[in-house]
């Protein structure tokens, strides 16, 4: 079974499953709303019709993937590339108001830089430093983005 599955077009199979999953989640949310009729649509009409359609397209992708032979390309998701970017941007979202734009961009840039195989700590530190100065000058002083340079968590 597994051997047979591994010779299928896994990209289409996974895409199909992903579409079906999203369709189920959003379809469940849409089903909580009043539906109405085709001539007097209520809030839930469009969302439910579209999530059903997405589900059907997901099934179609799934079947297509199961029918086709694997074209020989492998799909591997690389956590080494994904994790630093997610952690870095997450840090930005959660701390920019507290720490201010200067320190936050520094950390975000530095952490994100881990995602590359060419990561060198000193180069990344330098880049992060230059970038945070640039961002503070351009965005806060130049364009007047309403963010503090150093935020309230740093005693400001």
């Amino acid at each position, binding site marked *: 079974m597994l051997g047979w599955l591994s010779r299928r077009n896994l*990209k*289409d199979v996974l*895409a199909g499953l*992903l*579409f079906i999953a*999203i369709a189920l989640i*959003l379809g469940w*949310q*849409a089903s909580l*709303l*009043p539906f109405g009729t085709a*001539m*007097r*649509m209520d*809030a*839930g009409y*469009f*969302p439910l019709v*579209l*999530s059903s*359609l*997405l589900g059907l*397209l997901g099934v*179609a992708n799934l079947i*297509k993937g199961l029918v086709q032979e694997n074209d020989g390309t492998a*799909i591997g998701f*690389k956590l*080494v*590339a*994904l994790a630093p*970017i*997610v952690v*870095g*941007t*997450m840090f*930005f*979202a959660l701390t*920019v108001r507290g720490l201010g*734009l200067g320190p936050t*961009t520094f950390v*975000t*840039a530095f952490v*994100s830089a881990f*995602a*590359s*195989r*060419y990561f060198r700590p000193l*180069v*990344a530190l330098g*880049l*992060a430093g230059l*970038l945070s100065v640039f*961002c503070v000058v*351009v*965005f806060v002083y130049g*364009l*007047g*983005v*309403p*963010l503090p340079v150093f935020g309230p968590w740093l005693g400001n």
Partner: protein
Amino acid sequence: MDLLDNLALGFSTALGFQNVLYCFVGVLLGTLIGVLPGLGPVATIAMLLPITFGLEPVSAVIMLAGIYYGAQYGGSTTAILINLPGESSSVVTTLDGHQMAKQGRAGAALVTAAVGSFFAGSVAIIVLALFAPPLARFALEFGPPEYFALMVLGLIASVALASGAIIKALAMVVLGLLLGLIGRDLNTALPRMTFDLMAMIDGLQFVAIAMGVFGLGEIIRNLDSEQLSRGTVAKVGRLMLTREEARAIVKPILRGTVLGSILGILPGGGALLASFGAYTVEKKVSATPERFGKGAIEGVAAPESANNAGAQSSFIPMLTLGIPPNPVMALLAGALILHGIQPGPNVISEQPTLFWGLIASMWIGNLMLLILNLPLVGMWVRLASTPYHLLFPVIVVFCCIGVLSVNNATFDVLVMIGAGVIGYILLKLDCEPAPLLLGFILGPMLEEYLRRTLLISRGDPSVFFTRPLSATLLAFAVLLLVLMVLPSIRSRTNEALKE
């Protein structure tokens, strides 16, 4: 001749030292923010609005308008070089523009975008000067049924953007439509698909989704392939166009200009529909449609001309009717009101200096942009050929700040991260993101106009076919659908015959 007098008045206003200066500051700033990913003209103009309080109304509007069309120029630069559309209308430019960049033709793509934009902008300004009032009246003929028909046409055209498997493209369009519906329903004020989260009550932000999928998702994918092979440093080829390329872009620029000038007048998705409508047209008329999505120069020339023409003609409803067709125009209208000028049908007669001065300044500004951008092409290309491991942290940080600046909402940054992760997975599964973004914008409008039509007609759908404009547009949509389905049927029968 009235027009000549008016233009003379316009140029004498726009060529005043102060106004030339503000125009230059505007286009320069616009280019800058256009190039910085995520930071769009809406956020920038909103932030700079207070600065213009002290200026003459003409100077203020000239500068703000300069930021707007300057950002359109700058936005295509990032779309081509790093595959990041900052504005909905430059989504289409990424398709072939970035492919050209990967093949070392970034210079040619940028030059094409600049020349196409300049030509289209100039033509649209002439259209604006000559026909503004009648065109605005034409736009008023568009009621909910007509907009609905136009959205259907756009939706069908959006599938043509995909160069890969059609069934995945369809799924991506539907996913986009669905995501676009998240948030408060216009007709009932009910929150939809918000998981009871207060932060989702206004739906997901376009910029957050675009920066997530095209910015973060694309970066992660690039890094992931970098883990396997050497980096994806863009090659630097020759900057100028070859003779064949120069010849190839003439007609697409003309067609894009016409489409952009017309569709830009329509509120809502006008400029966006123009840019990918132009792309679809080129793909349809091309003798070699298979090159599209793989670096066809026509696929850069047409949408770039269309979106710049659209940017200029979107001034028409604002200046002649006082009805801003997009958020940037709404800001400009706000700036005028603050200066004591109520935008509306009387602006042309009551404020001739303002109206004609602005029109003249737009032409001057477009010329400045061309002069500014052509020499910059070399610099941009060299900047983009910076080793990727030094470039991507910069893009990540800019995306974060840009998304945050749109609504000052931290939640938008979280949406961007989520869209980035899902976008990465989708990219790895060969699902193209452009149709998703177009669906995202069209989804709410499609529903809005359909439901409004049925509300006004008391549930009678026949209005779609009895109103001539809407019937014509729907007929076009059917024709396009047939044209799209036919080749695939034909090729399938060909394959069947071979077997």
